[in-house]
């Protein structure tokens, strides 16, 4: 299992498009992926309901974990989504 802490850059935080992208990505990997506020409770990153329910905003720190055969690729893609500004 890999863990990583990142600061959320997109202005919308984990809502709207960034949330969609996270859920989309989490569903594309075999690994189990979780996301949650740094030091707080993690949720299933493949659930839109759970991800948007976190209420994570821009500038907040989040913990990511990925566990499975493709965990490295999964966590890299999530990190990219969460640290890339919205165009």
């Amino acid at each position, binding site marked *: 299992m890999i863990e990583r802490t990142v*600061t959320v*850059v*997109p*202005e*919308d*935080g984990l*809502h*709207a*498009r960034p*949330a*969609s992208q996270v*859920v*989309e990505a989490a*569903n594309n990997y075999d690994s189990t992926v979780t996301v949650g506020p740094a030091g707080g409770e993690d949720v*299933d990153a*493949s*659930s*839109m*309901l*759970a991800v*948007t*329910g976190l*209420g994570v*905003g*821009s*500038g*907040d720190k989040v913990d990511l974990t990925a566990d499975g055969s493709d965990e490295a690729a999964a966590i890299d893609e999530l990190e990219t989504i969460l*640290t890339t*500004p*919205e165009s």
Partner: protein
Amino acid sequence: MHDNPHKTRTISGISATPLSGLGTARWYHSGEQPDPAEVSAADPETEQQRFDDARAAAIEELETERESTRQRVGSEEAAVFDAHRQFLTDPQLTEPIETAIANGAAAELAVDDAFGDAIDQFEGMDGMMAERADDLRDVRGRLLRLLSGGERTDLTDLAEGTVLFAERLTPSDTAQLDPDTIAGFVTMTGGRTSHVSIFARSLGIPAIVGAGGELAEISESTPVAIDADREDVVVNPDTVVRERVTAGRDLTVREDRVETSDGREIEVAANIGTAAELNGAVAQGADGIGLFRTEFLFLNREQPPSEDEQFESYIEALNSFPEGRVVVRTLDIGGDKPIPYLELPDEENPFLGNRGIRRSLGADSDLFETQLRALLRAAAAGDGTLSVMFPLVATIDELTAALDAVNRVARDLDTEGIEYATPELGVMIETPAAIFMAEAFADKVDFLSIGTNDLAQYVMAADRENEAVADLHDPQQPAVLRAIKRAVEAAHNHDAWIGMCGEMAGDPELTELLVGLGLDELSMSAVTIPAVKANVTEIDRSEAVSCSDRALTKTTKTMINQTDTQ
């Protein structure tokens, strides 16, 4: 005795766009569906199949709607349909649905319950979380309609002049509306940041949202007006209202500068917050930019913008107005806006905290210096005239330190042999302190610019975001008008020009008052420029001065409002 059906009646809401409209009410009901609790269940296998089919059909519809929204509205707006599709495959929703079906529930009831629980969780939270409840409602409605075999109501082909009335409009409803035929829409629910409002702005449709349950009392085919300025729906509008909402619609864009009927030029400029708004400002006939907010250059990124990147942005603005003036406000940032690369501590009262010039002279002095370097270089290289102003100045010491920073940067550029020019320098008048010190400020700078939104907020001690104190947060409060008058006199006593860049400047009904008060420049959202320019040409300055003198004798806002309409 019963109510006269032709009586004029006003219902307040929230303007989603700055556009007004006039037309005929048409009610939209998103199709009646059977009460999910009343649907009798077949065997679990059949119900599961019905759910699977409805879900597959919903996903297919969403794909189509996403594509047409992307083409008609924009790709950012289309992203909402991705979120909807993800809810349909979200295990936290589908698992309880499947369990309920296995336990003998009809697909309708299972869907209604699972979504209902999720909606309850999101509802009552603020902002973007509350929007999620609307998304879930939209997805649930779609599934229930497909389960009952219902067709989607077609909104693409509404009659010319329709003002659509609805309890709520979903993103998919709104994306269908044709801005060329529809006169507007009004919804009971929704706020300024709801999807429906964002779509309305992108499409350019007059819209009032959040009008409340009272709307239900308005019957089909009633004439209605949408008054964006007053944020009202007017039922059976009289001639005065009709003229008000249609005024400006056919206004021609004046590219030339305008003067009052007695020959005094008033500069009419645009406020912009992104480079993309420059085109709109030019298209509406702005003389220049009266407020270039630079925060967009700094937000949404991990590193601050380089000097060269900023230079390019300022040049782009200056080259858009070769004959005009571009007033750039230096970085105005505080604890309310997160920027990953800045240490922005949580503050109890960010609007009274370390922000604006206070940070530029302290924690962000490096950023400030880089911004000034880019600005001084742009002043020499751009086509138009550059002016630079400092936000939230409250003391002479702050102003002196900011002017010293400009001199220091100029010296450095000189030593380095880099081409530069010192722009016109000014101060924003936003605080009571700045009003009291305006004479001393004006003595040191070329111009003052009144930010009426913040000035009203700080003079009246009324949060500009708090609806409960909206009446206090009004630039027409006598205390605010007196403050404005004082700033104008201070500027003119010291040969400085004075502008206004708050929302007040763009209210066409106040142009005469503002010209009477002596403002030299008015800067506003680009959309109101044609109306304000038209008004300026009809103003006689001695009449305007007596209008403002009269307003300044009044001690209540109500009395001031009455002088406006005389």
